[in-house]
């Protein structure tokens, strides 16, 4: 078990959300969690930079959020997919596109791997 992640991470392509990662991503996840509320979504949309600064996000975190780099936010930033998904309430981005980005595919490519491609905005 790694001291840094609190997990052996033996499943390839998988980032287990451990306490250590949760500690690292606390501000990032707190920011994303805040977007569950309509007034916060409006404030973020109106002035993203100020809103992110209010959550004391680092330049790296802010950059990855703007780039929609969910993969980096989860693997390196301690991001929790269940909180990051709430960014989609502002950007309109759904789970399938966050998944495709993590897999290094386009949404169209990803959808071809599915049995029944349901509407993808959740």
């Amino acid at each position: 078990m790694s001291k840094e992640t609190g997990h052996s991470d033996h499943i390839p392509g998988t980032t287990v959300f451990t306490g250590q990662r949760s500690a690292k991503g606390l501000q990032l996840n707190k920011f994303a969690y805040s977007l569950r509320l309509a007034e916060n979504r409006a404030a973020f949309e109106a002035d993203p930079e100020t809103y992110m600064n209010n959550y004391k996000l680092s330049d790296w975190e802010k950059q990855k959020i703007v780039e929609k780099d969910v993969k980096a936010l989860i693997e390196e930033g301690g991001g929790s997919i269940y909180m990051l998904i709430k960014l989609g309430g502002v950007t309109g981005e759904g789970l399938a596109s966050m998944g495709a980005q993590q897999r290094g595919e386009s949404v169209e490519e990803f959808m071809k791997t599915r049995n029944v491609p349901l509407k993808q905005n959740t």
Partner: protein
Amino acid sequence: MGKIVAGIGSSHIPSIGNAYDQNDQSPEWQPCWEGYKPAKAFLKEKGVTHAIVIYNDHGTDFFYDKCPTFAMGAADEYPIGDEGWGVRDLPPVKGDADFSWHLANSLIMDSEFDLTVCQEMVMDHGLLVPLPLLFDHDPEWTVKTVPLHINVLQHPLPTPNRIWKLGHALRKAVESYPEDARVAVVGTGGLSHQLNGTRFGHTNEGWDEEFLDKIEDDPEALIDIPHDIWMERGGAESVEMMMWLGMRGALTPDVNKIHRSYYMPMLTGMAVTVMEDAKAA
């Protein structure tokens, strides 16, 4: 007297809630809707008055700053949460604070299952996806609900064995309730899915079917499976399947199998099982 009459297992995939709200009757949703019809009919036939719903909050009310491993609602009403896309058009979930406090007393004092008791709790899709598919709710809910949250997001998670034992403790608590209550226990979550990493989209239909078999016939075969194995088989986020053991542990060892359906459209296995408690037949 309190009596457990039924156990329900159900996925709580958010897209089911969306499709339900939009009354999406397209062919790709029919297997899902068909799966719930016998479940709803059976609960009505059995005269269920109360539902104990074992689910996990996904950042609606709880956050990682304070993250209870087990938390139960004790209120007469629970508001519908906004998870980031607006509040669903559902009436506030009806609770029964007296029943909840009885359960809390029994769980904590009789079974030493000392969970967090919440007098205010905002409802999450973990509970709100299955509930409208199982019980009438227009203009208001016909069932009184006890929300029971388990942390399955931030490791360390409770073990499946602990969740199984929670089921036993719930049975003891329900059966010691002096008032009349006909209770369904609902275990939610899963089935196989993974939402993080390059393994995003991992599913495992064979394992899902095996899990559904074992939940009905041999649940104890599931209680010693380590988290790593759940994640390996069903995907990192499929650990929430463990919550079905809380439901199954509340039932008699043998159950009457009433209904089961399974559908794997896109990201997550959608399942519904209905079991009748042998003592309620």
